[in-house]
């Protein structure tokens, strides 16, 4: 978290860098000071040592001079020469006072102490300080520091008394006490101590140090080597020390206090440290302020970005001082405005049908999500009847304006809770909230009633009818997709049954489930060759011969058995899978027909084309290739097309029909009578045949009205040069009627059920056309 905040990072980096630099400087200064102190110490110690030696030597010279002057004094010499010890004793006292010596001794040339101011001994005794004597004997004189019997330290000068040859030695001692040490200390700048060393123990004989340190000193001394400067801890205070041996048992220790030497640097360091710390604090405060100034607008921007991220475009990005961040904020604000406007557009595109201004499918699905789960509701799907015809006859602009006009009307009909959406083409859907079946029925009727008022588009009055399918929530489905699907099924059913309104609940759903699974299995079925072609013979009523057969696809499902085409073909059409089925069917049928021809059986097979097939630009080439490769004459193949297939895209359908007709293929209009196509329209098509829907044929025998329609249709077709095929001939009465009314061809269970290809030749061979036609009295036997 610490490093996530930009502000903290800025502060940490700035202060960290400064601290680093300062630490380096401090370390450098400290290190350098240490070196300076060390070298200064060494210099001071060495200079002090030098001065000390000079002073001692100078002092010694003065003492020597004094001693020599004394020893050369005639009276003194005379007194010594008397060899009278009492006289000598008084003389040395007297003369010692003259030169300020504390100790005087007279030693005979053979080393006997004759007189001593400290002790008036009765007899001469050997002089104790042999070394002084031996040096004096060879050098003429000698000197040294000695601790005498009174325990005090003396600087002793030994000079000869000559008259003029050596008659005695006189030792003159000057006490080296603390005052002496302090005087030397003042002049050398070093602490001066004279120590006595006796093996491991040591004693301080004279020192300029204070009492405490003097007492502590003997403990430190054993660590000190001669003539080598080294640090010595005395009473917890470090001293750079050097020991100069005076003789075997005494030495001078000169010391420089390290603390004193370091003191000026310490104070410099502490001042520097204070400055550094103050600098860091000031810098830290400055960094914090700067970081705040940088980060505050960034945070404001970030807050604005979060609002925008959450979809709140309303609040403008705060305007900031016109620096870089201010410019960023301004850009950001412009971006916010543009994103907001684009989102508006996208929402519109996403949820609105551009043609009618109504909601689209997505919007409907979303709206459905807001229907209370425990409430009621309905989805109704409305499809305009014969809209394709309007589109093709009056043109798409008129169709579009019609749709938007209808959309406008629907919009007025709805309460706030309800929604109308255009799903696609001429299909609308209504979401009705809180309605039961009765309310839905009333709503549907009101819609249809509303549509009954003619709509004027570009000055043309258009009569519009529609079919409605209604699915109710929750009984028909739990989700919008299911309800839409079931409502659509209901709508399709309504249209098929020529009813205005159908409820999903009335047409059942089991079939639908089966269809769903079938749709999924169709592709595998194709691969597993579960599709078969059955042929239903078409009886030529003029000759009484079987001249053609309708190729009908069958699905031999491994579990469900033979599935009739009505159960899967519509969905193959809806899903587009028909585009794979039809070519397969075409090839299968053409191969079979060619086979039959070789066997001498001349059958013209009819193949159904769906709307998708008809619009498929590759279809014509495919057919051409097939009939060419199997040497089948184009006239030997009939293509059946439903009216509705023509209505999807009439212009393209017509163009393709023209090409197919030009190839010489026989074209047939299927299911005539179900749709709204008029003969006047049909005659513009390059077709050769009309198949009258089974509903009419079923009724000819008992309804004179139906009979009249069929009769006139046949007459009209013939007048237009079309041959007529009657489907669904199930009784001999129907067949009789058809024969009697000059229908050209009949097809139906009465003649034959659809059969596998391999059964057809035998069936034809065994088909006694005679009995049927004879019975009708057509054929004179």
């Amino acid at each position, binding site marked *: 978290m610490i490093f996530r905040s930009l502000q903290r990072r800025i502060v940490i980096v700035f202060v960290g860098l400064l601290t680093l630099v300062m630490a380096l400087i401090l370390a450098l200064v400290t290190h350098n000071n240490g070196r300076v102190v060390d070298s200064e110490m060494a210099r001071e110690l060495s200079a002090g040592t030098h001065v000390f030696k000079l002073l001692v030597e100078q002092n010694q010279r003065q003492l020597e001079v004094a001693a020599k002057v004394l020893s*050369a004094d*005639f009276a003194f*010499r*005379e007194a010594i*020469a008397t060899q009278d010890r009492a006289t000598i004793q008084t003389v040395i006292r007297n003369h010692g006072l003259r030169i300020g010596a504390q100790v005087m001794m007279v030693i005979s040339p053979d080393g006997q102490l004759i007189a001593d101011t400290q002790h008036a001994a009765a007899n001469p005794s050997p002089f104790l300080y042999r070394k002084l004597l031996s040096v004096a004997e060879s050098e*003429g004189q000698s000197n040294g520091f000695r601790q005498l019997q009174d325990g005090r330290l003396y600087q002793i000068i030994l000079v000869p008394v*000559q*008259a*003029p*040859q050596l*008659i005695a030695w006189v030792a003159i001692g000057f006490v080296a006490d603390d005052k002496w040490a302090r005087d030397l200390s003042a002049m050398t700048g070093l602490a001066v101590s004279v120590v006595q060393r006796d093996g491991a123990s040591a004693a301080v004989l004279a020192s300029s140090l204070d009492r405490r340190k003097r007492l502590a000193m003997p403990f430190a001394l054993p660590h000190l080597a001669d003539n080598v400067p080294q640090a010595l801890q005395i009473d917890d205070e470090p001293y750079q020390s050097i020991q100069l041996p005076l003789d075997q048992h005494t030495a001078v220790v000169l010391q420089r206090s390290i603390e004193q030497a370091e003191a000026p640097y310490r104070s410099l360091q502490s001042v520097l440290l204070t400055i550094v710390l103050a600098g860091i604090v000031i810098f830290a405060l400055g960094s914090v302020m700067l970081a705040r100034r940088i980060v505050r607008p960034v945070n404001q921007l970030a807050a604005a970005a979060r609002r925008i991220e959450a979809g709140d475009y309303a609040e403008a990005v705060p305007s900031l001082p016109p620096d870089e961040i201010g410019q960023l904020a301004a850009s950001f604000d412009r971006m916010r405005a543009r994103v907001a406007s684009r989102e508006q557009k996208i929402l519109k595109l996403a949820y609105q049908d551009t043609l009618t201004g109504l909601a689209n499918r997505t919007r409907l699905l979303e709206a459905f999500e807001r229907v209370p789960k425990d409430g009621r509701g309905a989805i109704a799907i409305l499809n305009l009847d014969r809209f394709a015809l309007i589109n093709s006859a009056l043109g798409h602009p008129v169709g579009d304006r019609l749709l938007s006009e209808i959309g406008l009307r629907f919009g007025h009909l709805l309460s706030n809770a309800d929604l109308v959406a255009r799903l696609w083409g001429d299909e609308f859907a209504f979401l009705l909230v809180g309605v039961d079946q009765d309310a839905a029925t009333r709503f549907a009727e009101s819609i249809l009633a509303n549509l009954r008022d003619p709509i004027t588009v570009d000055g043309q009055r258009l009569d519009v009818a529609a079919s409605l399918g209604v699915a109710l929530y929750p009984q028909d489905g739990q989700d919008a997709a299911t309800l839409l699907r079931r409502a659509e099924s209901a709508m399709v059913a309504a249209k098929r049954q020529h009813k205005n309104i159908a409820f999903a609940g009335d047409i059942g759903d089991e079939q639908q489930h089966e269809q769903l699974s079938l749709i999924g299995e169709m592709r595998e079925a194709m691969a597993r060759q579960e599709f078969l072609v059955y042929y239903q013979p078409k009886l030529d009523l003029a000759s009484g011969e079987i001249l053609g057969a309708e190729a009908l696809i069958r699905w031999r499902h491994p579990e469900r058995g033979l599935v009739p085409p009505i159960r899967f073909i519509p969905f193959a059409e809806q899903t587009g899978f028909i585009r794979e089925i039809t070519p397969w069917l075409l090839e299968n049928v053409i191969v079979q027909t060619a086979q039959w021809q070789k066997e001498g059986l001349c059958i013209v097979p009819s193949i159904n084309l769906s709307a998708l097939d008809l619009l498929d630009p590759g279809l014509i080439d495919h057919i051409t290739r097939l009939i060419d490769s199997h040497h089948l004459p184009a006239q030997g193949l009939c293509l059946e097309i439903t009216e509705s297939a023509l209505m999807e895209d009439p212009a393209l359908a017509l163009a393709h029909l023209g090409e197919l007709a030009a190839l010489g293929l026989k074209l047939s209009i299927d299911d005539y009578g179900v749709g709204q196509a008029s003969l006047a329209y049909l005659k513009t098509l390059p077709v050769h045949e009309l198949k009258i829907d089974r509903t009419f044929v079923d009724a000819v025998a008992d309804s004179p009205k139906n009979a009249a329609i069929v009769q006139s249709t046949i007459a009209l077709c013939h007048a237009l040069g079309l041959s007529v095929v009657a489907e669904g001939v199930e009784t001999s009465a129907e067949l009789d009627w058809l024969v009697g009314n000059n229908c050209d061809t009949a097809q139906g269970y009465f003649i034959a059920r659809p059969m596998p290809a391999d059964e057809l030749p035998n069936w034809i061979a065994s088909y006694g056309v005679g009995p049927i036609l004879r019975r009708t009295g057509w054929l004179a036997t």
Partner: protein
Amino acid sequence: MTRPGHAWLAILLACSGPAWAGTLEAYVATPTGVAVADAAVVAEPLSGAIPGKRTMDAIEQRDRELNPYLTIVQKDTAIEFPNRDPFKHHLYSFSPAKTFEIKLYAGKPVKPIVFDKSGEVALGCNIHDWMEAYVLVVDSPYFAKTGSNGRALIANIPPGHYRLRLWHPRQKKELPLREIEIGAATAKLDAVMDVAPRIVKPKPPLDHDQY
């Protein structure tokens, strides 16, 4: 060449010359073979002291030096101390053999000093510390001192037994006495004597500007 502890290296006696008088030739050197000057060689007759004639000798002071450095006299000899320098001197001796003092004087002192006791006498000047001279007072008329070549010759010694004494003001130790026989022939003596070099005490120059 020499064995430690033996001062006398060799005494070669030659029996030649007239019977009424003998000669002693001595050569004194340090153990390192350096000839020793100013060494006194004294032959004292064992037969008894020979009374001295009252004679005079002199040690003069010239150029702030006492000269000669060593004077050997028979007991009872008087020595004059003429001062040839243009300033005064103050001669003294604290030696037991003759303690005296001639306080500041110029020219010739009123009386010569009679050395009436045998022994060694060190002479100094109280106002010129470097001035130094020695007088050896002996009980015999037969003595000589070595020259700078280390040689000394005592002639006209009556034949007989003698105690031979060697002495030097800066000798490091006293040599033992040795008896010798002096005959008609020249007696030759090689002696080894350890002598400290003469210390030349600093003598300030006379230049007034410098002093």
